[in-house]
């Protein structure tokens, strides 16, 4: 137990450290409270026609609707926390080449607090568009909003709605899919929203070969999850049966080496089940899926006969009821291999034992 004496000694030691830290801490020159600062900024930026002229002659709006802040997660921040370097009046003059550069500069504002997510965006397909100098490239505020900044995943469907503002066609397809219907119609919390597959900040180019080859493990994150699949009566063997088959093995070995990013390599989950238009493949819908299978196979194997699709056991492990022929052959070797190899091994052991015995 710590005695009174040692507590006093510890406090005596800590007080000068704390005083020293406080004395050297940077102090704000700008001496307004949060609310005072907001009022001050809005006295100019609350005017609708406030704008600045960019180097290319275009006008960049500088108007800010004060009410937007009310629901913002950032409502207790100072304006200058994000709009740094503007705490002097009048502001030091700034120059932006064009709208793209003007907008990109907002991303820099988020960086100082959200550096981890900012760093992730540098690897994203969105950043690539931004780096090209595209004025409409998605920056932080494009997805998150600026002053009205809310929680991006509340409710969950909001994520997909955010993406839908630009990706309209994909979103229209998605909402009709088995995942989208459950999200929109039932507020299902298990189905993937855009970011569950595409990630949020480090969004990869979906035509990238490495990313496409990772789709089995991506789908497997949920579809091989026993607890989650049990709720919907879905089999978790989908991943293992896929990987054990020709297509899956090929994919797990990195497919066919040097192929272009947009080239079709080997049937991945999405090649049969679709991407944004994934439909149910169980229950009543299964028949339709099965009937269309030969069409699906012919996407890659144009000469496939009507028999060909049944070469694929539809993610089922062979059993006496499903693919009995395959099951029996499997069973046959399960017995034969230990019998033959064990028998020969026994003979080798006996042979050696006798030879050793004879020499004695």
């Amino acid at each position, binding site marked *: 137990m710590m005695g009174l004496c040692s507590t006093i000694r510890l406090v005596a030691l800590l007080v000068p450290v704390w005083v020293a830290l406080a004395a050297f801490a940077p102090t704000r020159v700008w001496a307004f409270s949060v609310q005072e600062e907001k009022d001050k900024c809005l006295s100019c930026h609350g005017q609708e026609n406030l704008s600045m002229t960019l180097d290319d002659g275009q006008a960049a709006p500088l108007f800010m609707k004060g009410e937007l802040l009310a629901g913002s997660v950032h409502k207790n921040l100072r304006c200058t926390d994000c709009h740094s370097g503007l705490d002097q009046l009048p502001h030091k003059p700034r120059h932006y080449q064009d709208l793209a550069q003007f907008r990109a500069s907002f991303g820099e504002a988020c960086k100082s607090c959200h550096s981890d997510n900012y760093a992730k965006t540098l690897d994203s397909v969105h950043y690539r568009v931004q780096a090209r100098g595209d004025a409409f490239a998605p920056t932080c505020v494009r997805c998150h909003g600026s002053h009205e900044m809310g929680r991006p995943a509340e409710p969950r469907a909001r994520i997909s709605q955010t993406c839908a503002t630009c990706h309209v066609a994909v979103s229209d397809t998605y909402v009709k899919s088995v995942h989208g219907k459950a999200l929109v119609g039932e507020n299902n919390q298990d189905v993937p929203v855009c970011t569950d597959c595409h990630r949020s900040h480090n969004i990869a180019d979906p035509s990238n070969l490495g990313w496409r080859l990772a789709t089995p493990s991506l789908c497997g994150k949920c579809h091989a999850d026993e607890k989650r699949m049990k709720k919907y009566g879905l089999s978790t063997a989908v991943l293992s049966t896929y*990987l054990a*088959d*020709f297509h899956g*093995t*090929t994919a*797990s*070995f*990195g*497919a*066919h*080496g040097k192929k272009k990013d947009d080239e079709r390599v080997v049937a991945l989950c999405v090649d049969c089940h679709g991407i944004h238009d994934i439909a149910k493949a169980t229950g009543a819908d299964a028949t339709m899926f099965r009937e269309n299978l030969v069409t699906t196979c012919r996407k890659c*194997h144009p*000469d*496939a*006969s009507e*028999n*060909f*699709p*049944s*070469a*694929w*056991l539809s993610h089922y492990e*062979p059993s006496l009821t499903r*693919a009995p*022929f*395959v099951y029996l*052959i*499997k069973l046959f*070797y399960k017995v*034969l*291999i230990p019998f*033959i*190899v064990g028998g*020969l*091994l026994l*003979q*080798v052991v*006996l*042979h*050696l*034992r*006798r*030879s050793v*015995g004879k020499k004695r």
Partner: protein
Amino acid sequence: MSEQGDVVRFNRRERIEHVLVMILFVVLVATGMPQKFHEAGIAKTIVEALGGISQVRYFHRMAGVFFAALTLMHLTAIVLPVLTRRSTLAMVPRPKDFRDAVLTIRYYLGKVRERPQYDHFDYKEKFEYWGIVFGSFIMICTGFVLLLPLLATKFLPGQVIPAAKVAHGNEGLMAMLVVIVWHLFNVHLAPEVFPMSRTIFTGKISRERMRHEHGIEYARQFPEEASDAPTDPDAKKP
């Protein structure tokens, strides 16, 4: 043992066949097992070392087609001389082989004093040979089904493809294990031949080894030297 004392056991065709089968077998196992055990870490290492899965499959298929051709040539070379009565079917199992197997095991167990005497091919050699023949038949048939699944399903039900895959992988695994456990023991580690029997490469066997391992054939070829060697009970009396 002098060169003069050696007896020719395998002709040139047979020796070349063995070397080719040996090479093809190693290639087929090395490129086939990583496909069967694809989850294993070492499978990834091997596949990468060989230049990717496409390359591995290409090697495997090429070796498989060569193996099929070699098997066909072997059968032709065996069947034709038999049909024209220039050769006998020394490899065909006879009742004596089954008795030999039992007797040999009884000998290993110490139940009988002497090991039975064997003819030109002993029961172990016959077992291995026919194992390879039947195994090859399965491997070649299933291999072609897997090589040409679209063609196969034009005539056969689709389930044949996964069935062929299961059979091909397991038969291959069994062949590999039999070669490791049985063949490599019999030609390398067995005390009679340790460290290695060179007969299949030189084609020659010493008279001493022949007398020991193929006593019946020895007695037939050199009757004056082996007057008291046991004779083959199944041999037809003159």
